[in-house]
């Protein structure tokens, strides 16, 4: 029964561009899909490993920048000449994922020296430092002028210029990430993470290497966020330092919390709600500030009334 429903849902999603003749709505769905991937990756850290990371957008942005820069090629003259020629886009996207994963490893190594409030503040600081580097290192990132004309993904003659192709690409990546996270969660490493989130001292006492599993969770989480960033860069085809804005982290956190942290379907449900909701609000011609005010209020209300999120509430 459940398997049949899943297959039906996937069929509907996969054939959507064939019967939905509305390019704008398709665009909204592509962007929503990218955010859902990012939210799923955040859920690994927030939901399973129990660490409230508020610098998540940094990995998304690093993925986007690394991928865009590799695809465009760049030259640096300081402190010695570094020149990278333009590479094919699939390689660039891999570079984006690897770069984000490496940053995740590095940050995980240093940030997990502290916990709770301190970890949250370190993660915010990290994202802000990265944003300021993106604004100020004009030679590499073009600063506020943004990276333009990023090529779309292409294999030979097949280029992902149009919306349906990109939709399928995002959908495939999202399904892949979902399956990967599912496997991770049900593995030994996943159980170790959940144990850590629930009671760190107890988990340590039965021999779980805390730092190792937290760093592992960060690497997985960061790489997937990097993949989402790379997809974003080659779909929108322009990247500016605004991708690092804190508000995007908040959006991802709201998606995960509302949907239900620590559940596989949670980020998907939350992502669909908050990806599509702004479009509904826009139709009512509210100024954008009201949208954010509504997000803020909604976040408070969810914490008060649905502290576990929508998915666990429905399950009960």
């Amino acid at each position, binding site marked *: 029964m459940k398997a049949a429903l899943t297959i039906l849902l996937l069929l509907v999603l996969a054939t959507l561009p064939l019967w939905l003749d509305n390019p704008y709505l398709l665009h909204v769905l592509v962007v929503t899909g990218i955010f859902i991937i990012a939210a799923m990756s955040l859920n690994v850290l927030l939901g399973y490993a129990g660490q*409230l990371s508020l610098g998540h957008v940094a990995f998304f942005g690093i993925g986007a920048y690394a991928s865009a820069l590799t695809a465009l090629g760049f030259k640096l003259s300081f402190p010695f000449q570094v020149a990278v020629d333009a590479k094919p886009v699939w390689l660039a996207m891999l570079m984006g994922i690897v770069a984000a994963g490496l940053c995740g490893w590095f940050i995980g190594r240093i940030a997990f020296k*502290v916990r709770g*409030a*301190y970890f949250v*503040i370190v993660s915010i*600081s990290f994202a802000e430092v990265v944003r300021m*580097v993106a604004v100020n290192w004009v030679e590499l990132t073009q600063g506020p002028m943004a990276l333009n004309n990023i090529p779309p993904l292409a294999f030979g003659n097949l280029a992902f210029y149009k919306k349906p192709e990109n939709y399928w690409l995002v959908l495939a990546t999202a399904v892949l990430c979902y399956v990967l996270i599912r496997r991770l969660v049900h593995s030994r490493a996943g159980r170790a993470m959940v144990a850590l989130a629930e009671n760190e001292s107890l988990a340590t006492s039965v021999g779980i290497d805390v730092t190792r599993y937290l760093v592992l969770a960060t690497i997985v989480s960061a790489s997937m966020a990097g993949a989402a960033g790379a997809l974003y860069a080659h779909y929108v085809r322009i990247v500016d330092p605004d991708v690092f804005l804190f508000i995007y982290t908040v959006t991802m956190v709201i998606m995960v919390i509302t949907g239900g942290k620590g559940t596989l379907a949670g980020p998907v449900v939350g992502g669909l709600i908050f990806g599509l909701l702004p479009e509904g609000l826009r139709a009512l011609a509210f100024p954008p500030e009201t949208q954010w005010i509504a997000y803020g209020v909604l976040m408070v209300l969810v914490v*008060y009334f649905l502290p576990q999120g929508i998915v666990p509430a429905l399950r009960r």
Partner: protein
Amino acid sequence: MLGSTYALLGIGLTLIFGIMKVVNFTHGELYAFGAYMMYALVMLAGVNFLVALPLAIALGVLLGAALELVLLRRLRGADIDTTMLVMIGAWIALQNAEQLAWTGVAKSINTPFPAAPLVLGPVSVAWNRVFVLVIALLLIGITYLLINRTKLGRAMRATFQDRETAALMGVQNGSIHTATFALGSGLAAAAGALLGPVFVAYPSMGDLAATKAFAIVILGGLGSIAGATIGGFILALVEELGAGYVSSGYRDAMGFLLIIVILLFRPTGLFARKERIG
């Protein structure tokens, strides 16, 4: 001058964290609120500058008390992540409400001080900056007296040291929390009301202020008032040196780098006595 207002921000935040165990993400919005109230009172309502300043601070205290009563009262005993999420929600809502109310255009506020600077030998300082420094130091002094010399202050310190014992001794935890949050918010609003007229007031000004306050508090050690005071001056110094010797574009990044470096090499902060590793 910057150091003293940073210290005000830091003291407010460190009080709230130390006593209530709440990571106050709305701190920066209270700072922006102070600046905007100065704008509303001085530029729109035509109130005298010197009257407007205490009024703006009082409004900040009221807003802080209201936030505590409406949002935090029912969350007492919840874990720190839950309160953090609520505070982030409140922060986003407040900031965008400010943007909606005052538009994104930066507002400047006139001051009654003479434009000619005060010249002291080789140094010349603008009068309004002297004023900011004096008032900020005065407020820091008052806060010290309040914490160390009054009954309320003693109750706050007792709650900070041991919440249960303090409650057993007849300290009302609830009203202490409201008073702490109101005091901390008032200090943030005061910093905004003082700096708003020196620079300009704009909706996202609170973000930088909040992160700087976090940097100061981490520098000084969470819950340490002396640490926050010294931390404020250190951060201002590091920022100026960083802007001068590295690049002015990275001026505001200095605070964040400071946070990361401090947490790496001295995770308990410079002045704290408590363990902060989980």
